[in-house]
């Protein structure tokens, strides 16, 4: 809320500069967002919290200044405002029976409706002082009547609306919900279609204003206006809010009603308007006032215990201080016992409902800067992540150790050729921006973006984060880790041979190592169902037990083309949520042998159609316990090898626990292995 500093000084006598007053308000919870000099006067811009509608007025902010600054003094205007501008000379108010009154309230969303009539109005320009102040507050001066309604709203927070009485059919006001299909043209010249939940101010036949939001053009005041009906009312905040959001509009009035306006200040605003109008020579004479109000609900007294306040705030505030702070804020507090008060919140503070709310008021006025720093006492608790969260940390740390650079990307995104074709996508409803219409269903989509951004060459990246989709009508979300490997594993250097490019087996080696460190056994197998993002003859499925937990492969050349990525892109993705069922949790150490190892090699010809996994499995089971490890060290095809076959050379490392292996034993193992492999069609070489 913007207002010139002199308006605050109308209410408060203080030696504070505008900046100091702004800082003081900031520390009271009304943040000074800006201060600028307009025509030689500082204008404050104060941000008001959504639960403090009472701060949307100079009077309300003056109250806060007076509460915080004990040297500041209230002015006559402030004291008058506190008395609701009640004066003996004012015309009598008829609080009439709603059913026979000229005002009929037909909805509970309007809790109070008052008006005052003015006759022989000359709606010219408002006094230059008013015009200037409104301009500084960011409101355009229009005419005497409109300017005064705005000015009173700025001062007191109560929105007012002036109707040209001669334009009101039947000379009466009906507050009701709109009829289906009803329309109104608002002051901004726009025709608006109404819905039945919207509250309208109507005359005998038609809507003349959208309650609490904006007036209609039909009953607008003009330079010719002679007779005025000035509305001051209280509307339920949620109703105003719903209406104005449905209509997609907002006004100074709706902004205040949404944040709650003081129902007790409805008539005071009429009085203040009359006062200001009377200062304009020859303007008008006030006529009758009608106020339809069932009366304020009896406020519930709140018990305040000083000891409770001390405990929660962590700083002591005395009974005297508490009483003084609350009184300055307009609360009624009566002492009911040692360190105990019964507190009643004023009508402009609907946010204060329980003891803690009152304690907050004490703390706010006393000053949060006076709260000391302490540390919680109490039982020791075990900190940090455990279980799944802790295991995911371990996976991420190992990915980094293996040389992958971590990326963190948007999850709200556009479509990508690397989206998972087997998980239906979801996205936020009502979003039309193609850049954020979807939630990613694969981390590979994100890695594709990162690859493009970084040139698509010599990259080794991983992304760990959430993926989303829907499955059997349910929204699913899981943590996934994706890997991308492109180009060389090592940067070009004067000192090394030209580094080799990325291959399926480079990435398989890395993923295998990661799996070894974090999972309890992982198998790579030819997939049952091909993933269309990957090269159909260069992809593997990762299995944990019988569960499919991920994929690994070279990018499909078509997908590479569409995604603008090189064909030597290797990709892998593991669903960590599923993989966690197979997390490595327990390691059982094996004794290590002190005896030397024997390393016989075997070489054989075999059909290329026999999967190596089969060979490896056969070899292991044939070799038995003496086999410490084995590794493939040569693959050859070409000259001397029949078509459709290749020659494989495998090293067997044999070792015995607690004794030396004899040559004879080694030979036996080697023979057993070759014999078993012969069963797969292998013929020994050399």
């Amino acid at each position, binding site marked *: 809320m913007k207002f010139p500093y002199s308006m605050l000084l109308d209410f408060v006598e203080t030696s504070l500069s505008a900046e100091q007053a702004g800082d003081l308000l900031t*520390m*009271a*919870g009304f*943040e000074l967002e800006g201060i600028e000099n307009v025509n030689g006067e500082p204008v404050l811009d104060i941000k008001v*919290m*959504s639960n403090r509608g009472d701060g949307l007025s100079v009077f309300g902010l003056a109250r806060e200044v007076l509460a915080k600054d004990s040297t500041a003094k209230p002015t006559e205007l402030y004291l008058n405002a506190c008395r609701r501008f009640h004066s003996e000379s004012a015309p009598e108010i008829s609080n009439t029976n709603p059913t026979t009154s000229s005002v009929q309230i037909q909805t509970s969303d309007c809790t109070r409706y008052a008006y005052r009539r003015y006759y022989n109005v000359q709606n010219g320009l408002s006094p230059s002082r008013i015009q200037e102040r409104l301009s500084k507050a960011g409101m355009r001066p229009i005419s005497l009547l409109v300017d005064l309604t705005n000015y009173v709203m700025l001062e007191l927070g109560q929105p007012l609306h002036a109707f040209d009485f001669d334009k009101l059919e039947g000379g009466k006001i009906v507050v009701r919900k709109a009829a289906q299909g009803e329309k109104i043209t608002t002051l901004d010249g726009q025709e608006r279609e109404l819905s039945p939940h919207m509250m309208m101010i109507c005359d005998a036949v038609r809507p003349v204003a959208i309650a609490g939001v904006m007036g209609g053009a039909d009953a607008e005041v003009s330079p010719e206006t002679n007779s005025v009906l000035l509305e001051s009312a209280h509307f339920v905040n*949620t109703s105003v809010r*719903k209406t104005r959001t449905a209509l997609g509009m907002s006004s100074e009035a709706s902004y205040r009603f949404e944040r709650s306006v003081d129902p007790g200040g409805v008539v005071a605003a009429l009085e203040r308007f009359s006062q200001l109008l009377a200062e304009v020579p020859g303007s008008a004479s006030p006529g009758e006032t009608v106020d339809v109000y069932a009366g304020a609900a009896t406020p519930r007294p709140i018990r305040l215990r000083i000891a409770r306040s001390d*405990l*929660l*705030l*962590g700083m002591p505030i005395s009974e005297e201080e508490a009483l003084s702070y609350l009184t300055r804020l307009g609360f009624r507090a009566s002492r009911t016992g040692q360190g105990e008060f019964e507190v009643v919140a004023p009508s402009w503070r609907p946010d204060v409902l329980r003891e*803690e*709310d009152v*304690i*907050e008021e004490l*703390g*706010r006025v006393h000053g*949060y800067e006076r*709260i*000391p*720093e*302490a540390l*919680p006492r*109490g*039982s*020791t608790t*075990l*900190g*940090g*992540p*455990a279980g799944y969260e802790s295991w995911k940390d371990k996976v*991420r740390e190992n990915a*980094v150790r293996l040389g992958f*650079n*971590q*990326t*963190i990307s*948007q*999850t*709200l995104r556009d479509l990508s050729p690397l989206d998972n074709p087997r998980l239906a996508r979801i*996205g*936020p*409803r009502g*979003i039309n921006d193609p850049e*954020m219409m979807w*939630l990613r269903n694969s981390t590979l989509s994100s890695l594709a*973006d990162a690859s493009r*951004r*970084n040139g698509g060459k010599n990259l*080794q990246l991983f992304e760990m984060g*959430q993926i*989303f989709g829907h499955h059997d009508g349910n*929204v699913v*979300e899981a943590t996934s880790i994706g890997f991308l490997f492109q180009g060389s*594993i*090592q940067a070009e*250097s*004067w000192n*090394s041979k030209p580094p080799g490019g990325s291959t399926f087996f480079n990435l398989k080696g890395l993923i295998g190592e990661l799996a070894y460190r974090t999972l309890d056994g992982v198998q790579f197998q030819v997939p049952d169902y091909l993933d269309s993002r990957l090269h159909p003859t260069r992809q593997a499925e990762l299995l944990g037990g019988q569960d499919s937990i991920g994929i690994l492969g070279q990018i499909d050349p078509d997908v590479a083309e569409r995604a603008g990525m090189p064909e030597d892109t290797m990709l892998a993705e593991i669903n960590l949520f599923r993989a966690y069922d197979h997390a490595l949790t327990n390691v059982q150490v094996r004794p290590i042998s002190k005896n030397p190892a024997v390393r016989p090699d075997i070489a054989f010809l075999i059909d290329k159609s026999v999967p190596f996994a089969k060979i490896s499995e056969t070899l292991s089971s044939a070799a038995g316990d003496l086999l410490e490890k084995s590794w493939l060290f040569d693959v050859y095809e070409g000259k001397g090898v029949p078509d459709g076959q290749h020659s494989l050379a495998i090293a067997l490392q044999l070792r015995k626990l607690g004794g030396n292996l004899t040559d004879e034993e080694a030979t036996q193992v080697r023979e057993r292995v070759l014999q078993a492999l012969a069963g797969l069609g292998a013929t020994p070489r050399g």
Partner: protein
Amino acid sequence: MPQVQDLESAALKEIAEAPSTARLRELEIKYIGKSGLITGQLKQIGSLPPEERKSFGQQVNESKERFQALLETRMEALKENEREEQYQRERIDVTMPGVPARMGREHVLQQAANRIKAVFTGLGFQYLESPDVEEFRYNFEALNYPPNHPAMDDQDTFYISDDLLLKTQATALQGRVYEKVKAGDMSLPLRVFTLGRCYRNEAVDRTHGHTFHQVDAFMIDEGISMADLKGTLGLFARAMFGEDVLVRFRPDFFPFVEPGVDYAISSPKLFGGKWVELGGAGLIHPNILETYGIDSERWSGFAFGLGVERIPMLAFGVDDLRNFLENDLRFLEQFPG
């Protein structure tokens, strides 16, 4: 006899003239090897009269010892020369570039997250997570939001359906935890923190993103006060930004805390001495405690939030939020981890 003496002088001469340790090793074999010239003299011993045998043997052995002694001295000297030559031969230019190493690096937001996690772990806060696609009730209802609160608007929140949304605040975890307390699956006192991705339907610019990361930490115990909150935040801020950081509270409003504040930090050395807002905080609203069957007279608690992106922005001077999720390695490589 003269034969041994002649042999010895020839041998000693050869040692003196040997140019390399390799030559010395040859001479060693030539003269005192198994069938060396000096050692070989002992074969004649059988043909000598018995009374001469002892002295002859002695003579040969002494000759061999002298040979050996000279050989060793000479060997040492030559070895030293040769090592020196090797050093000169193997000289490299150590100022040439090293072979580039390939090491993985954590993203700068991960690095910030790790530091935050370490501090809270040290303070005994248990780390938990909640999903990005969150239930409406956890994101708002459980946190004491009145119906029709502005934050619930479509224009501010991404809805998947009426009941599901992209969580707008990491605080959404709290209801899940309180529910567990109510069900007896967790017990009081408790200290919990989370770090998660949040989404708000906002226009994107240098300081706003529709996606960002938040920490939410909260604890419930007997007698927890605003002073405990301030002290914990002070400890945290000093761990992140340095010893002389101060914490300031200012009243603010969040439906899930009462009193509610926003907290700012400042230090003479940082941020140009200005107060920099870090997040919202306060005492957990008693309405929430009571909703979950927690006696608000006995238990109180605090909660606070923090934007993860704020940490590298303040610590390293990152001035555009958009850098974080774009993954340009030229940006990420500046944070060694």
